[in-house]
């Protein structure tokens, strides 16, 4: 983690590579400061001028592949579609999802930078852990499978696969995968949608779907999804001709920003 005694050398090398004059001046300033203070030999943190370094504010809680915290589950970010992640950043930023820490962190960021952060996490390829075996009764799991794969024509609930991909690993550009998430998290999100605490850009397609589910359906589909292993190819499917008539809102891409 640490590279003792290399503060100035590392600093200069990186500055010249990045080519930022300001950065270079900053680094020189601090290097000379340290040299005069005879502190050059002290340990310097291993530092990279990278996106991974920039988003440590995110990964501290979310971890490399999602993590349980004292107030809930911080879901996996790696490998999710950039459009989905960008939409979620905007949802927190604009109050459609409410979580004070997220909103506070995002307040000073630009849309272009949020898109870049979304693209960074989307590009990561982190292996998924095996699913934890479900203790739900077989009938419950079967109801969950039915909802996920076939939907329920009687209550007009579309199958999860119709939007989230045939393998449920998501569909580009903005439909997230549903596998590799803990049951409680899926449960909580569907509950939040039913109660209006989680919303998305209009038309907010998941809202009516979640409200159409019975509490038993929510339990069933969460249990089934959480018990499914990831397929060998776990990446989101390419954008495809939609098999569903469900219309989902999404954010316009930031002006002048990067494109997914």
């Amino acid at each position, binding site marked *: 983690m640490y590279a003792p005694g290399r503060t100035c050398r590392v600093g200069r090398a990186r500055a010249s590579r990045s080519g930022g004059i300001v950065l270079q001046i900053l680094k020189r300033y601090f290097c000379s400061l340290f040299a005069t203070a005879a502190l050059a030999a002290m*340990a310097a*943190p291993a530092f990279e001028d990278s996106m991974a370094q920039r988003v*440590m504010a995110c990964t501290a809680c979310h971890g490399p592949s999602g993590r349980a915290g004292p107030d809930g589950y911080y879901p996996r970010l790696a490998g999710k579609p950039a459009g989905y992640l960008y939409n979620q950043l905007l949802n927190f930023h604009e109050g459609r999802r409410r979580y004070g*820490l997220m909103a*506070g962190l995002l307040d000073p960021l630009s849309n272009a930078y949020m898109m870049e952060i979304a693209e960074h996490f989307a590009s990561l390829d982190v292996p998924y852990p095996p699913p934890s075996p479900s203790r739900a009764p077989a009938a419950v799991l079967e109801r969950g499978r039915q909802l996920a794969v076939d939907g329920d024509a009687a209550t007009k609930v579309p199958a999860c696969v119709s939007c989230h991909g045939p393998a449920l690993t998501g569909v580009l550009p903005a439909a997230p995968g549903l596998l590799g998430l803990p049951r409680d998290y899926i449960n909580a999100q569907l509950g939040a949608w039913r109660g209006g605490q989680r919303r998305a850009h209009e038309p907010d397609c998941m809202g009516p779907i979640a409200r159409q589910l019975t509490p038993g359906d929510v339990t069933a589909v969460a249990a089934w999804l959480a018990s499914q292993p990831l397929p060998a190819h776990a990446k989101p499917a390419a954008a495809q001709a939609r098999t569903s008539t469900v219309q989902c809102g999404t954010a316009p891409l930031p002006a002048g920003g990067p494109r997914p």
Partner: protein
Amino acid sequence: MKKTVIAVLLGILALLALVMFLNLRGESDIHDAPPPASPAGNAVARGAYLVRVGNCMGCHTERGGAAFAGGRAIDTPFGTIYSTNLTPHRTTGLGEWTPSDFWRALHHGRARDGSLLYPAFPYPDYTHVTRADADAMHAYLRTLPAIDRTNTAHRLRWPYSTQAALAVWRALYFAPGAPPQDTARSAEWNRGAYLVRGLGHCGACHSPRNALGATSDMMDLSGGVIPMQNWYAPSLSSPAEAGVADWELPQIEALLRTGVAVRGTVLGPMAEVVLQSTQYLSPPDLRAMSVFLKSLPQASTGTAPAATARVAPAVAERGARLYGERCAQCHGERGQGIAGAYPALAGNRAVNLGVTANLVQVVLNGGFAPATQGHPRPFGMPPFALVLSDADVAALLSYVRSAWGNQAGPVDELTVSRQRGGTGS
């Protein structure tokens, strides 16, 4: 007896007349024709710029709401004020407001219907804005899409909810002003003073407030706690706080334009100001503001750190251990930081402030410097609210404030505990 009653009544009447006089002094009649349908383009562009300088959008836009349509809740010690709709909607916005109505709001703090406005709208600062600038701002606001959003009623406690209380407050603390002019100073300095004291309304946060929410002297910029937000806007007239008298001008400009400079980074409410307002200042205005800020007389005291209070050895040990585990990776084992990414903590003025609110904020909630055009990809600090206890945060900060030559007083657990909360759900 009868005479006494008459004397008392007369006294009350005289006081009422005085309050009324003080509230209306300097006002001229509103006798404008209805606003022109299409204001001149030049005034609109200038108005758009000035509205940026005043960061009107910051308060007059609700999270996720339409720009300038109001509705943002502003918590004050007296209750909650809701910002109003500035879009030109005829019934719910400023559609019927003439340039004179708008000028009176900015300059005298009175609405179109004559009612007194709460100084959460910083008219004690905006009163220094010129009529020409006010007219340009009004012209720009008239070009916005008209949004139909009815203003939310303020929720203030009695007696603060009454116009009478507001009239007394204004009689005590508000007088209409004029653009600051110091003929002994350069035009650049005067322009800077105009921006800082007027539209920039820097004093709204950077000046201390009394128990009635009035800034003692709008212009002293000697630092103040932002009501209800648990952020401290440091003194701009103290070398120990945020004074910039010994900074190079380009560094002051860099801080206002990009949010970062060699000797400091903006966070919290100031990050919002840089993001939404000062990064858009024209180069001459940035220079003028910097010249003025650099010229502010520097008091030697500021908020004196409690340097005599010692950190208990057990607390220091706990703080040092937490620092090694949680902070050293980025801020360095000796608080040296990483230039361009992570601020040094050794010798950092923000670390050594007498008021510890900002430090506690940053450790609990983390944060990014603003993503500005000049510094678009800031590095972030994670929140620690969910992994560190109040005692942990207190020990950690007490350690940081006493290590590597820092000589500020310890932070106690109660202070951290009071600031916790607001992490949402």
